[in-house]
């Protein structure tokens, strides 16, 4: 009995070992520049925009007929977790788009293929600088998104608000006016079960008051500026203008369906909102964030899997994506975001989408939402902060107290 | 202590009648047995008396009060189930005490905690504890009070069931085939215990069974049921001696009464098939009848005595006596075997050398014991005096 189970166990170990070996050897170099490559990105599933973006991407096949692109689709909420798990197991798509904070951990773990040769001829702009780790370009900017205040013109008119607010007080007042008209005033993410998205867009509030998560040496979570940002966030929720419990897909749908007046969202989303015909470009209006300082931007990074089976082909694709041809092709579907090169807004696009200009403006001044010097710890830091912010809006915890607790807990965890 | 009156009681399930026009009056303290083959509706009748089944039509009254709509517990009855229906999770003592417990239970005892406390308190009350002990003594259960039913023998379980019904001192005991799960020996013993109980408590009993021995030995009055209709109401002697119709005649007795198709002409009764004379000087109108004779009233004819010829076909030795099956008529000598003889007649008599297979005998009948039934209706002629002719049985 015992010997039998031991034998069983050793068999299992051998089997498992074999599987691991097979998985590890997946990094063999395929035929250079041919075959099929999978491209992972949650944006394929974005209504309206996803299809257009995929169409633009597959134009690559026209210039490189030897290479076929295949979609790998995962909804945003599960995207990061799934990609980490796959790549950790030595699998995953050949080329993929990741959030900048995830990029940092993947880069540190050595799971990204250097792209220096692939992008040598490209005219990369400064947004790519912090994707160059220790002299190796491990990723390029897919899009750098800014956050702006977006308004639904129809709803605002119904509520009697003639221009987008420029301060939090005005925002609350405008939201209350919408509420009186029987509509929802304002929405942003606010729940831990949307952690990935919330961590992505919350920094706009603290950065909007001049805050940041670190000074490069140590964490500065309990700084005055951050507390002011969290206080503004709390004031907005306390005012009752936010439909609490709505997740991003819910409040974005409401916004498109003329039930919600305002949201703070990014340039990528803004394009999505007007892409499926429910909301016209004229009815989407934009303004800088209603905070004293510029907000944070977030970057989506295009990177190649170091364990991919067809790295050469994947790098060919990256080469194309940052080339002038690629950038021009991708520009319309990436809307008002800043791209890897300084390719101008498509003229036709700017004309059709007057809201886009705000984002371009904002992109010049806003800062990265990543904690400087703690890039690879961005997730635990954001989680620690947002857990406290959640308490602020649900348990009436004082913002100062909350940020102090987050600072203490994180200092202990990261030491 | 009710005098029970059934007034045209009917019961049907869906559209199917199970009991039809059941009318009877039963005096107090009778031991009434509802007797009939399985499926005759006797258990249904008992359940209606108990209040476990609704009465579809007619009225059941106890001492003049109609009880159709009374709950079982309001009828002052006890019910002993065929399966005993002992509560398996309670000890014998708790089983016996349960009716008393429920009697003393007040709705507010249902409150949490109160319930457990009060149940224990009631069980300790002297009148309850003593009553349980007394009943247990009566039925010799004192040694088993702390046992659970599953560790008892069949007879002991039966006694617990009786004890549980006895403990409340009801005025009417209803027993549904209570002995059918016992072995033959135990059954005989319990039969006399139940009869003894009836004498001791001096209450009315209604006892359902398909076993005629139980009915004959225990009953003071029997109602024979078939297909939901009353066939006869009477004392065991009346039921046996003066069966109201061929059903009762066949059903009672083992074997039942012999019924030989016969024809009467000028007081002379002949076997319809073999043509032999069965009776002379009978006070009957001419016509077709069934000639009925109990096996013990038939015997072998003495030498030289006249009587119908018969051929012995089966012989069953019962120790002191013999039950022999005979076919009226003589076998055809050439064919070697009887052809189309009359029906088999069973006789119960002392052993005799001629009672062997194929033996040729002559039979004699005790004329005083002969009963005639009309061939068309099955009713006895003349109708027995003193036994009301049930309406349901006349077509």
């Amino acid at each position: 009995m015992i010997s039998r189970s031991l034998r069983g166990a050793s068999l299992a170990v051998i089997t498992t070992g074999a599987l691991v070996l097979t998985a590890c050897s997946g990094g063999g170099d395929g035929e250079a520049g041919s075959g099929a490559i999978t491209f992972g990105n949650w944006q394929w599933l974005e209504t309206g925009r996803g299809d257009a973006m995929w169409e633009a991407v597959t134009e690559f096949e026209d210039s490189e007929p030897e290479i076929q692109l295949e979609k790998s689709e995962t909804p945003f909420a599960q995207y990061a977790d799934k990609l980490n798990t796959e790549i950790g197991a030595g699998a995953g798509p050949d080329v993929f788009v990741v959030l900048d904070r995830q990029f940092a951990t993947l880069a540190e773990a050595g799971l990204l293929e250097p792209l220096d040769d692939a992008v040598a001829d490209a005219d990369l702009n400064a947004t790519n600088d912090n994707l160059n780790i220790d002299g190796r370009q491990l990723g390029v900017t897919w899009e750098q998104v800014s956050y702006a205040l977006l308004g639904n013109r129809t709803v605002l008119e119904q509520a009697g608000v003639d221009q987008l607010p420029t301060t939090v007080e005005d925002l609350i007042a405008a939201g209350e006016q919408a509420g009186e008209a029987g509509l929802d005033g304002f929405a942003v993410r606010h729940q831990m079960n949307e952690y990935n998205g919330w961590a992505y867009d919350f920094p706009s509030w603290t950065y909007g008051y001049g805050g940041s998560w670190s000074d490069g040496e140590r964490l500065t979570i309990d700084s005055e500026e951050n507390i002011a940002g969290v206080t503004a966030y709390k004031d907005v929720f306390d005012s009752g203008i936010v439909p609490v419990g709505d997740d991003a897909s819910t409040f974005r749908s409401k916004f498109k369906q003329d039930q919600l007046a305002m949201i703070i969202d990014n340039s990528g989303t803004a394009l999505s909102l007007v892409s499926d015909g429910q909301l016209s470009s004229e009815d989407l209006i934009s303004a800088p964030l209603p905070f004293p300082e510029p907000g944070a931007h977030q970057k989506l990074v295009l990177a190649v899997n170091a364990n991919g089976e067809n790295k050469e082909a994947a790098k060919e694709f990256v080469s194309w994506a940052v080339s002038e041809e690629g950038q021009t092709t991708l520009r319309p579907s990436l809307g008002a975001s800043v791209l890897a090169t300084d390719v101008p807004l498509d003229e036709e696009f700017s004309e059709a989408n007057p809201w886009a200009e705000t984002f371009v403006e904002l992109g010049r001044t806003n800062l990265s939402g990543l904690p400087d010097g703690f890039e690879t710890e961005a997730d635990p830091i954001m989680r620690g902060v947002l857990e406290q912010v959640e308490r602020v809006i649900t348990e009436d915890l004082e913002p100062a107290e909350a940020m102090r607790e987050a600072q203490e807990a994180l200092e202990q965890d990261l030491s | 202590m009710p005098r029970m009156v059934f007034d045209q009681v009917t019961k049907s399930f869906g559209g199917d009648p199970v009991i039809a026009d059941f009318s009877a009056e039963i005096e107090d303290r009778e031991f009434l047995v509802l007797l009939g083959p399985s499926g005759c509706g006797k258990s249904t009748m008992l359940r209606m008396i108990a209040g476990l089944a609704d009465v579809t039509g007619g009225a059941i009254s106890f001492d003049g009060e109609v009880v159709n709509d009374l709950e079982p517990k309001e009828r002052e009855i006890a019910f002993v189930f065929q399966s005993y229906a002992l509560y398996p999770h309670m000890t014998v003592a708790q089983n016996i005490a349960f009716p008393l417990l429920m009697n003393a239970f007040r709705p507010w005892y249902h409150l949490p905690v109160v319930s457990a406390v009060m149940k224990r308190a009631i069980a300790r009350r002297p009148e309850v504890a003593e009553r349980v002990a007394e009943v247990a003594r009566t039925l010799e259960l004192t040694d088993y009070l702390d046992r659970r039913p599953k560790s008892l023998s069949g007879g002991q379980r039966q006694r617990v069931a009786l004890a549980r019904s006895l403990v409340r001192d009801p005025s009417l005991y209803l027993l549904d085939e209570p002995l059918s799960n016992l072995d033959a020996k135990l059954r005989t013993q319990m039969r006399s215990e139940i009869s003894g109980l009836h004498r001791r408590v001096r209450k009315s009993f209604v006892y359902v069974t398909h076993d005629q021995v139980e009915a004959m030995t225990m009953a003071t009055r029997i109602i024979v049921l078939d297909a939901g209709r009353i066939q006869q109401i009477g004392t065991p002697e009346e039921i046996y001696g003066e069966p109201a119709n061929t059903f009762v005649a066949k059903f009672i007795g083992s074997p039942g009464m012999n019924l030989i198709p016969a024809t009467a002409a000028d007081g002379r009764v002949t076997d319809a098939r073999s043509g032999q004379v069965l009776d002379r000087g009978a006070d009957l109108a001419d016509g077709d009848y069934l000639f009925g004779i109990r096996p013990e009233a038939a015997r072998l004819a003495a030498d030289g005595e006249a009587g119908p010829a018969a051929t012995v076909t089966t012989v069953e030795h019962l120790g002191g006596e013999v039950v022999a099956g005979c076919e009226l008529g003589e076998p055809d000598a050439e064919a070697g075997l009887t052809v189309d003889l009359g029906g088999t007649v069973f006789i119960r008599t002392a052993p005799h050398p001629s009672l062997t297979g194929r033996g040729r005998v002559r039979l004699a009948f005790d004329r005083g014991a002969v009963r005639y039934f009309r061939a068309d209706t099955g009713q006895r002629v003349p109708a027995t005096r003193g036994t009301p002719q049930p309406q349901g049985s006349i077509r």
Partner: protein
Amino acid sequence: MSYRTVDGAPPGRASAPREAHRPARGRGTRSRRRAGRLLGYAFIAPAVLYLVVFLVVPLLQGIAMSFTDAKLINPTGGDPVGVDNYASTLTADRFWNSLLATVLYTTATVAGTVVLGTAAAVLVNRAFRGRALLRSLLAFPYAMPTVAVALVFAWMYNQSNGAFNRGLGILGIGETGWLTDPDWGMASVVAATVWKVFPFVMLVVLAALQSVSAELYEAARIDGADALNTFRSIVLPHLAPTLRIVALLMTIWSIRRFEIIFLLTGGGPVETTNTLVINVYRTAFSDQNLGVAATVGALGLVVSLAVTCVFLLVERRETKREEAL
């Protein structure tokens, strides 16, 4: 219970086969018995192999991982850190909050499903018109995919547009953040879980109820017991063994339930529904900290083993008590 045959059988019965074997023991018999024994092992080998490959090995790997600082993106590359993970996990509030959430969730879910399931079983065990229809309706939630249930509940719980708050609005009562208010999050998740799972209890209890002889109900009626007394004195003792098993199953299932909690709250609001399982998931996949996740998992294993042992001890005691009478 299976162990009743192991140690609960009376000695006489247990020794009988042994005696039967003794005189028959010879050379031929011995080899035949050995072949029989090998055949027995051959029969259980696939099951054992399955358990070893899919249970024992991962379990041991998981425990081993809890002593390393393995990260999700490099699962096999963790360095040993001794008991650091255990020390930090056990000293942090998160683990204890998560244990409390698990206990609350499990207790409430078990109580809710057992009470509701039993009540529903008693209801549909009665004969009435439309019983078959009601039975299937009540069993319906169990047949529904958990994900669908979670999504529908999330929608009904929605603070501004959900069915519950709209209903309350009509009654003139203010809205509640069912899934966002820390005071309500757990209750809302429990309610959704109970709705989803109680039919299982109902079906099992219904089967047990149908084995209560109809004559027992009638005997109780004759003895003057009302409905509540009939239930407590006669039906409940009959159901007790079933209910104990169901409660054990419900407990184990509640401790490891993931989807409905994850989809409704993801562990929030403010970690109030961050049960051990959700905690493991979040630590492993969102924090990407496999070592700590394995630690929380190992501690969770200890908790569920402890719960199971307590249940089995209670069950064994009850069985012995039953047999003593």
